[in-house]
């Protein structure tokens, strides 16, 4: 096993070197570069040089197109160019701990709090949240429509043993679902509990075909046309809050703070709230900025 692992490691290393050689615009993949932007010891030679900073964030903000809607506005106003590294929440936080990013925009409250507690981050703000829905067939065999709490709805599904499709792929949504089951003190198992091991789109499709329930994020659900209905929403455990945090060891506190202010003050918040309205008929993210 060791050999396989080391072989993989070697392969990855080779790939990384290749990447580093090819692109100088990816600071995360090029640790050997002479002056990585974060640890830049050389002072900026003149004011005319463009200021830049690194934002580490999750793939969801990038893939949904939110950053493409916000960052150009910020860059134009402030003259600071923002380099985005879109990775999983865990990795984004790691980048912050290592000082390889200036600001984090992530969604894992527990990990964020730890990050601040350990002294890696300062100036943590809530920025916005998006929602999860429990969706299912219109006939609603478990009768969960209108149930207020996600926990209760899931318990009803389990009790009736109505088919429920789970992502089962250890993604953020999957973790969310598992945490609700845990809250309800239920271990879902049996033939009614279907673990698809696939992405959100495929899982929704499967739920539609099988007239089953599933837990989905809002954006993916709205982007598909399916015969599934939103049955439970708005419960606190179905909210997915995003936080923005400044990295304490950042060499660009000024620029970082400017970005945080942009996201949490009026203009940025308005842009966040409007994002997606054109395409989906309603905003994908709900702005709710406040300092923690």
């Amino acid at each position, binding site marked *: 096993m060791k050999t396989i692992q080391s072989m*993989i490691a070697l392969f990855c290393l080779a790939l990384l070197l290749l990447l580093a050689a090819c692109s100088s615009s990816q600071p995360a993949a090029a640790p050997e570069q002479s002056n990585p932007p974060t640890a830049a010891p050389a002072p900026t030679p003149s004011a005319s040089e463009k200021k830049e900073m690194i934002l580490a964030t999750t793939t969801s903000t990038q893939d949904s197109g939110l950053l493409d809607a916000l960052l150009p506005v910020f860059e134009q106003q402030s003259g600071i160019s923002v380099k985005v590294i879109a990775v999983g929440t865990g990795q984004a936080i790691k980048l912050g701990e290592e000082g390889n990013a200036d600001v984090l925009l992530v969604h894992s409250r527990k990990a964020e709090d730890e990050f601040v507690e350990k002294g890696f981050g300062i100036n943590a703000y809530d920025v916005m949240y998006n929602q999860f829905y429990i969706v299912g067939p219109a006939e609603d065999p478990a009768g969960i429509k209108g149930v207020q709490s996600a926990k209760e709805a899931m318990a009803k599904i389990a009790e009736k043993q109505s088919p429920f499709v789970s992502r089962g*792929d*250890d993604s953020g949504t999957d973790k969310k679902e598992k945490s609700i089951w845990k809250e309800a003190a239920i271990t879902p198992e049996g033939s009614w509990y279907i673990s698809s*091991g*696939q992405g959100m789109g*495929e899982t929704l499709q*499967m739920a539609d*075909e*099988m007239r089953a329930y599933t837990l989905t994020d809002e954006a993916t659900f709205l982007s598909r046309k399916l015969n599934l209905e939103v049955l439970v929403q708005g419960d606190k455990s179905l909210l997915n809050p995003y936080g923005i945090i400044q990295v304490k060891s950042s060499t660009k506190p000024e620029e970082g703070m400017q970005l945080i202010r942009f996201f949490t003050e009026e203009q940025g918040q308005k842009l966040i709230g409007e994002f997606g309205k054109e395409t989906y008929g309603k905003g994908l993210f709900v702005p709710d900025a406040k300092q923690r």
Partner: protein
Amino acid sequence: MMTQDVWEVIWLSLQVTTVSVAIGMLAGIPTGTLLGLYSFRGKRIVVALIYTCMGLPPVLVGVVVYLLLSRYGPLGALGLLFTPEAMIIAQVVLVTPILAGLTMSAVQAKERTYWETAKSLGASPVQMMITIVREARGGIWSGVAAAYGRAISEVGAVMLVGGNIEHHTRVMTTAIILETRTGNFTAGLQLGLVLLALSFLFNSFLMAGVLNQMKSRRR
């Protein structure tokens, strides 16, 4: 690593593949034999079609079978989507042309020598066909091996119509995809090696058998 879940996945892979190839043999070998023996109008088109279908893209087969079996499709009432049966249907579509095509070539290679002899001995058409198939079995078996290899290593179609459901339709190839996507490269690689070993074992048995038979024939 060899937990019960893994065995379950391997076992389902073997079941689905074996049943598919068996059904494919029942349909493909007689078709291939007939095509190898007889000429008729439009045979060229049929042969061209079979050769084309030997290289059918699995995902395409997957999408078509999906649409047929979908709740909103023509066969939706059967409720077969996301079941092992759906996977078998897709696999049969994939392997039957391979079996038919390779049987046809094998039969054609033997045809002249045996056709006349069998006929002069007064064999009925059915008897003649059986004789020819027996004579061409070396080529036919390698067709079976090719079909088996294709079916067991196929991933696109079984992912689409099976859905990779745990304990239900998760087979080796789809499990490898899941393991890789969740970052368990080691587990993915291990399963891949099991897959390779199985293919190798199966093919060696098959080829060893074929070679032995050919040898004993010659003596």
